[in-house]
């Protein structure tokens, strides 16, 4: 009941400040731009000219899985920035502005407060990522060749874990520091750190969430879920739960 009240308030807020419009639009753009530009670039260069006489353009056209993965690459670079941007004030903003004094002086359970906000943000971001990824898949089918819808869906589900993981990091950092700018920086820094550590110690950390996007790539090409993929998803889920739990504990004991 109380959880639903907070969740609904988040949804209304995202509607009023038009996040429900611009976030999906931005992700749609990220999702389709590479497929379109890669496909049309040779034609554009040809018609614009400026190429030396006799030079031949030989840009390899990627196969459908690689073409779809271009969307994921964009999400990993630019999408993550956008996610960090919209989540940086989720809790820290309320703590900083002072709205929390009115909200948290009511008998609000801290676990409701954090998880409802987390769920609201996740719904917004995942819907947007799905829309962008769907757009990417659409153009892959038109321009690069057929790719099964089921493959698209399963790869999205794997990637969902990665997005949720990043959202959770950001929510967690939100309870650590009050400054939204610092939240932005720390969330991205943490994600980069995890990615680098996973890359260096990949052979030991085979279940690190840092592998998730390469697993998306692997799955797109092979079409099979490996044991490592399942294990990594389970590990990620466990880390998400743990981070949320820690965030609740931190906020509960925080000197506000």
């Amino acid at each position, binding site marked *: 009941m109380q959880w639903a009240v907070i969740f609904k308030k988040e949804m209304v807020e995202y509607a009023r400040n038009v996040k429900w419009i611009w976030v999906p639009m931005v992700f749609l753009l990220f999702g389709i731009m590479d497929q379109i530009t890669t496909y049309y670039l040779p034609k554009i260069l040809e018609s614009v000219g400026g190429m030396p006489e006799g030079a031949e353009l030989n840009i390899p056209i990627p196969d459908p899985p690689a073409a779809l993965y271009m969307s994921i690459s964009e999400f990993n670079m630019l999408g993550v920035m956008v996610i960090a941007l919209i989540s940086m004030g989720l809790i820290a903003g309320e703590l900083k502005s002072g709205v929390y*004094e009115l909200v948290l002086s009511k008998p609000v359970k801290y676990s409701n407060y954090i998880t409802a906000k987390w769920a609201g943000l996740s719904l917004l971001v995942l819907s947007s990522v799905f829309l962008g990824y769907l757009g990417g898949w659409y153009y892959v089918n038109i321009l690069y060749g057929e790719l099964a819808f089921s493959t698209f869906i399963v790869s999205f589900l794997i990637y969902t874990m990665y997005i949720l993981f990043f959202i959770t990091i950001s929510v967690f950092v939100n309870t650590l520091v009050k400054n939204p700018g610092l939240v932005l920086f720390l969330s991205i820094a943490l994600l980069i750190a995890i990615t680098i550590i996973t890359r260096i110690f990949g052979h030991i950390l085979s279940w690190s969430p840092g592998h998730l996007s390469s697993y998306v790539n692997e799955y797109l090409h092979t079409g099979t879920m490996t044991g490592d993929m399942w294990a990594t998803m389970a590990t990620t889920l466990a880390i998400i739960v743990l981070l949320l739990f820690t965030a609740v504990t931190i906020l509960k004991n925080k000197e506000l």
Partner: protein
Amino acid sequence: MSLIEVKNLSKSFDGEDVVKGITFELTPGKCVALLGPNGAGKTTTLRMLAGFSKPTNGTITFDEQSLSSDIRNYIGYLPQFPVFHNWMSGKEFLIYVGQLSHLSKSEADSRADELLDRVGLTDAKKQRIGKYSGGMKQRLGIAQAMMNRPKLIMLDEPVSALDPIGRREVLNLMREIKKDATILFSTHILNDAEEISDELLLLHHGELVEQGSLDELGNLYDSGKIILAFQDNIPADMEEKLNKLSHITDIEFKKQSIEFISSDVIASRAEILQLAVQNDWPLTKFEIAKTTLEDLFMKVVNQ
């Protein structure tokens, strides 16, 4: 029976003691002013009662706490600078905090209408809070503190930032609320405390230096102060004449008046009025001063 019992409450930030072991009780139905100069620890005390700040030491006990461990069920809190979700309308915000306090949607709706009417915001209830004036926000703040029908309403400097009209509105509102709940409000403005509070808690440098009703405190500090004012300048032989009288101490000369303390006000009155007639003093005023809150405040603060 007391509504809330505070025992030996203290708080330090980074080794600095902001509140130093204060003990008090609040009686149900009273309006209590937490009075003190800036930096006395008023806000910190209220924030501890509201649960935002953990006491370094001491206990806070609600008499009904046995019902539930969350004291926030019984309190309404208005911070000094309330910040709302500015994108919401006044009514939406009240319904939101009402539902957070476990009211059903329809209960919250009717309670919101009732309170909006009471704080005079019915006409503005559909307006975005971002467009409200300072006084309107303060009144909405009081309404939100009352949504869950709290036993104790805590208001942090509710009128200090308002213009005279806004201040009057809020004070009248507080007088109204007194019928339903115990009020604890902080202020550094003596008039406000004097005007609506039944009891005072005088806080200074984190210590509770005095507490009691206004009358009790007045008697306690009844100074026996007498003020004489003169039409022109003070007659030259005044000091000499006054010094001859017994009971009189602490003579203080001002431009056109003299203030002094008498240990026996009745006797001094007879003597001085007699002297005034005999010497034809150009008196314009003879006053046995009642201790004002300001005197009390200054006395306590300067100790």
